[in-house]
């Protein structure tokens, strides 16, 4: 367990200066994410062009892992359609939870989150934004990491 694997420069940078921070108004889709165990909250707002995410913003308060993960996610999903976002979430989820997962070069900057898998108590911090994005693309609303909500279980989606 190496702390520097968790708090990599990319993570610290995106925590200090989150990208795409704020709110789109009007937005085509919105969702709130909440982790009641640590108090993390974030709101995602999206503009869609057909099935594609044309623009995305997030705002909220959370730990460095949840803030950086949301920031990195907004960069990664812009311009992708639902199917591509779903596929990407699958690969990010494997990165966060599977200790034996091989390096996935195609993940780009998102690969900086790989250190999270050595810290099981922090996986939910990193995945909260992705579950929230799923909810926004689905029908909006609020998701919670502790609500017994199927969409938030740490199974591979």
């Amino acid at each position: 367990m190496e702390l520097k694997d968790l708090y990599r420069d990319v993570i610290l940078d995106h925590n200090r200066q989150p990208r795409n921070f704020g709110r789109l108004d009007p937005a085509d889709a919105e969702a709130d994410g909440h982790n009641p165990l640590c108090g993390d909250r974030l709101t995602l707002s999206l503009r869609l062009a057909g099935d594609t995410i044309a623009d995305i913003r997030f705002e909220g308060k959370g730990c460095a892992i949840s803030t950086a993960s949301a920031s990195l996610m907004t960069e990664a999903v812009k311009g992708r359609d639902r199917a591509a976002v779903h596929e990407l979430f699958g690969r990010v989820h494997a990165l966060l939870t599977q200790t034996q997962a091989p390096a996935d070069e195609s993940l780009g900057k998102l690969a900086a989150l790989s250190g999270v898998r050595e810290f099981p108590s922090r996986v939910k911090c990193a995945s909260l934004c992705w579950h929230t994005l799923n909810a926004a693309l689905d029908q909006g609303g609020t998701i919670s990491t502790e609500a017994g909500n199927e969409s938030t279980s740490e199974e591979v989606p």
Partner: protein
Amino acid sequence: MSAIPLRAAGTGYDVERVRRDFPILSRTVHGKPLVYLDSAASAQRPLAVIRAVEDYEMRSHANVHRGVHALSQEATAAFEGARERVRRFLNARSTREIIFTRGTTEAINLVAQSWGRAQLRAGDEILITALEHHANIVPWQMVRDATGCSLVVAPIDTSGELIMEEFHRLLSPRTRLVAVAHVSNALGTILPVAEIIAAAHARRVPVLVDGAQAVAHTRVDVQALGADFYAFSGHKLYGPTGIGVLYGRQELLSEMPPWQGGGDMILNVTFERTTYNELPYKFEAGTPNMSGAVGLGAAIDYVESLGLDAMAAHEHGLLEAATAALGAIPGLTLIGTAKRKAAVVSFVMDHIHPHDLGTILDAEGVAVRTGHHCAQPVMDFFLIPATARASFGCYNTLAEVQQLVAAVRHAQEVFG
């Protein structure tokens, strides 16, 4: 950091000897010596408690109050011996007033479901404080929803102290019960329970005290205090989990209906009617946690062998050192600065979320609690989602306070 003396002067309390009583303290975490600063969540067990539980399991276990055989009698003697030990610890009048529960939470739920449902009506009020743990909020909300009574909350000030003028103002002719923490788990504030009880009794209102955070740090005499109900957990007193105590005044307990039905709480059962057992068994349905009770008895023996006053003085030294050293760190804000506090330091840091701080401290071997501490209304009052909380027990040292401070400074370097 040089301001922290390595040894408290002139107390005669040998913390190194105390540490040798706790086997877990010699282990390492992530390759570093364990610095355990989470005793408010659960205290570690001394060898005397571990051995007492082991001895019971290996030599004396059988069901209690049942058989005529030797083991059942030994188990019963051990279990009832633990009850007498608790009675002396609290200075209750009678063992009839000592009910074993799973912990503080179950003890409060017992009073809420039994006394509360029988006594409370629409228009009645339960008065609590803004410092309460969820375990002293949610059971009353459940009773409120079942009976139509109201829950009234006495506010705190920005130091984390109960505003007594507000408490006196909110104590009204409609108040039927006051339920307060003795010590706040999130902030460490010691509440003026004697003054609270005197004010409530002047209006003939009974008082329940949540003593979960108090019993390991202060002497509790339920008769001197005048508490009508007093609840605590074994595992915060260096005893096992799954065992706790509800003390209740006999006059109140006698009138209360049972809240769970089953074995041990009955005298006679037919399909037509059941005669309930006498106190305290009326409230102990089912086979109880005997080994837990034995462990709790051993834990009480242990803390009394150290001396609660000596322990409290030692911990107060740690509290003062930690408060001074952490308070001097730029970008760190102490949450909860009441004049009278147990050895709990809650804090937040600029630009470092408590969750990240907890992970970085853990990597240094320093165990603190991070989160809302099951007291979300306290967090909401201070407009924060969470804090980091260091809590000190009888085995902590000034060197560990220094390690905490060094780890916090390291976190600041990581987050540069």
